[in-house]
C-alpha cells in the first residue's frame, strides 16, 4: 500500500520536477561553461537558483499535502483501505525523495561551480572545524537531515491542525499559531538543555559558531531528541487525520 501511494504521488508531480530540474541543469551548464570567469554572475545565479528550487520543492510538497488530502481529492485518499499514518508516511517519504533529487542535482553542480571559480575556502573551513573527524561530520549531516524531516512534519501538523472544524473560519490562523507555538516550545526546551536557543528553521542557517560547539556526544543527544520529537509529531498528525478531521 505504501509503495503504491508513493508511486502515485510521484506520478502526480514528476513532470513538474523534471521540468524545473532540467531548466536548472541547462542554466547551470551554461553558467559553468561560458561564464566561469564572471563571478558577479555565477555566485548570485547559483544562490538564486538553489533557493528557487528549494522553495518550489517545499511549496510543492506542502501544497500536495494540503490539496491531495484535504481538498476534494481527499474523498478518494481517505477512502483507500489504509490508516491515516500510511497516507502521512507516503507524503513524507515522497517529500524526502524530492529533496534527495534536489540535493543530488544541486550539490554537485554548486560545488563544481564553486571550485571552478577558484574558491577553496569551503573545504578549508570544514576541515578546520571538524578536525578531520569524519564521524562528527557524518553525524552532523544525519542530524541536519533529521531536523529537515522534523520541520516538514511540523508544517504538516500545522496544516492538519488548521483543518479542524472547531476553528470555524480561523483555521489558517490556528495553523500558523501551531507552528509558532511548537517552534517556541522547542526552542525553549533546547535552551534549557544547551544554553542556546535554536529555532526550527535554523537548519538553513548553520554558521561557524554552531560548528564550534558540536561534539559527538552533543550531536547524538540532539539527534535523539529530534527523532523523539519527529515520532511524537508524526503520531499527532496521524491521530488528527484518523480521528478528528472531516472533509468538507
Amino acid at each position, binding site marked *: 500500500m505504501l509503495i503504491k501511494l508513493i508511486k*502515485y504521488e510521484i*506520478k502526480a508531480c514528476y513532470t513538474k520536477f523534471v521540468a524545473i530540474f532540467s531548466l536548472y541543469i541547462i542554466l547551470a551548464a551554461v553558467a559553468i561553461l561560458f561564464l566561469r570567469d564572471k563571478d558577479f554572475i555565477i555566485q548570485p545565479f547559483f544562490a538564486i537558483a538553489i533557493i528557487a528550487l528549494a522553495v518550489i520543492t517545499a511549496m510543492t510538497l506542502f501544497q500536495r499535502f494540503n490539496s491531495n488530502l484535504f481538498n476534494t481529492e481527499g474523498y478518494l485518499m481517505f477512502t483507500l483501505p489504509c490508516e491515516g499514518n500510511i497516507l502521512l508516511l507516503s507524503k513524507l517519504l515522497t517529500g524526502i525523495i524530492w529533496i534527495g533529487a534536489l540535493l543530488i542535482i544541486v550539490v554537485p553542480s554548486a560545488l563544481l561551480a564553486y571550485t571552478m571559480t577558484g574558491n577553496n575556502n569551503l573545504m578549508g573551513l570544514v576541515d578546520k572545524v571538524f578536525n578531520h573527524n569524519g564521524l562528527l561530520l557524518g553525524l552532523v549531516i544525519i542530524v541536519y537531515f533529521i531536523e529537515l524531516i522534523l520541520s516538514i512534519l511540523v508544517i504538516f501538523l500545522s496544516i492538519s491542525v488548521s483543518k479542524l472544524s472547531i476553528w470555524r473560519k480561523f483555521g489558517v490562523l490556528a495553523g500558523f499559531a501551531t507552528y509558532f507555538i511548537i517552534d517556541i516550545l522547542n526552542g525553549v526546551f533546547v535552551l534549557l538543555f544547551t544554553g542556546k536557543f535554536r529555532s526550527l528553521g535554523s537548519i538553513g542557517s548553520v554558521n561557524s559558531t554552531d560548528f564550534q560547539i558540536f561534539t559527538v556526544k552533543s550531536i547524538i543527544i540532539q539527534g535523539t531528541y529530534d527523532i523523539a520529537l519527529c515520532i511524537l509529531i508524526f503520531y499527532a498528525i496521524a491521530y488528527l487525520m484518523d480521528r478528528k478531521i*472531516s472533509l468538507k
Partner: protein
Amino acid sequence: MNNLIEIEALTKKYEGKLALDSLSFNLSEGKIVGLLGPNGSGKTTLIKILAGIMKGYEGSVLIEGHAPGAYTKAIVSYLPDKTYLSSWMKVRDVVDMFSDFYADFDKSKALELLKRLNIELGLNVSKLSKGTYEKVQLVIVMSRRARLYLLDEPLGGVDPAARDVIIDTILTNYNEKSTVLLSTQLIQDVERVFDEVIMLKEGKIFIHDEVDNIRSEYGKSMDELFREVFKCL
C-alpha cells in the same frame, strides 16, 4: 441474514448544528435502499460517516461488525457528490489506480462498462463533461465487488438518458451479498428500484420501511409522500 449495517444512537453535531439526532437502524445485505430527505436533513453526513471520512460522532456504527476504518474501507465503495479524481489522470489511469489499490476491483468489468458508455480511456479526466465525468466515477465505484455501495446523489446534474444508464448499472450490479445505499432528491426516476427507503427529517428517521409496504399503506409514491412530508420546509 446478518445485518450488514448496524447503527445505534448515532449523533453528530456539526458547526453547532445537530446533523444527526440519535439515529438507529439496521440494513441487511442484498438490498437497494433509498436515503431520502431535503438538503440539510443529514443524508450526506450519514453517508460520510459510513464511508469513514467523517469522524467525531457519538453512538455506534458497525459495518460487518467493524467501526468505520481501514477494514470497512476495503469493503465499502463510496461515490461522493464531488469530483475527487486527480487532474493529471486519464481515464485509463483511474482504472489502473483503483485496480492497484482495491483487491475487489473488477478491471475487465470497468473497461467493458466504459466501452459501452463510449468513454475514451485516453481522455484526461479534467477535460470530461460533467455528465461523462460522473459516469466514469460511477463505473469505477460499481466495478468494485464491495459489500456496501454508498452513492451520494449519483443522479443530480446528469441528463435523463444517463440517469437510466446509471439506474440500469445499479440493477445489473445487484447481488444478494451486497447492499446499495443511494441518497437522492430525484426520487421519481429511481424509486422503482428501491427495496426500502429511509426518509430523514432534520437528522431523525421519519420513515424506514419497505417501499411496497409504504405504497400499500399510504397509497402514494415515494415521490408524492416525500413532497407531502417536506412541503412545509
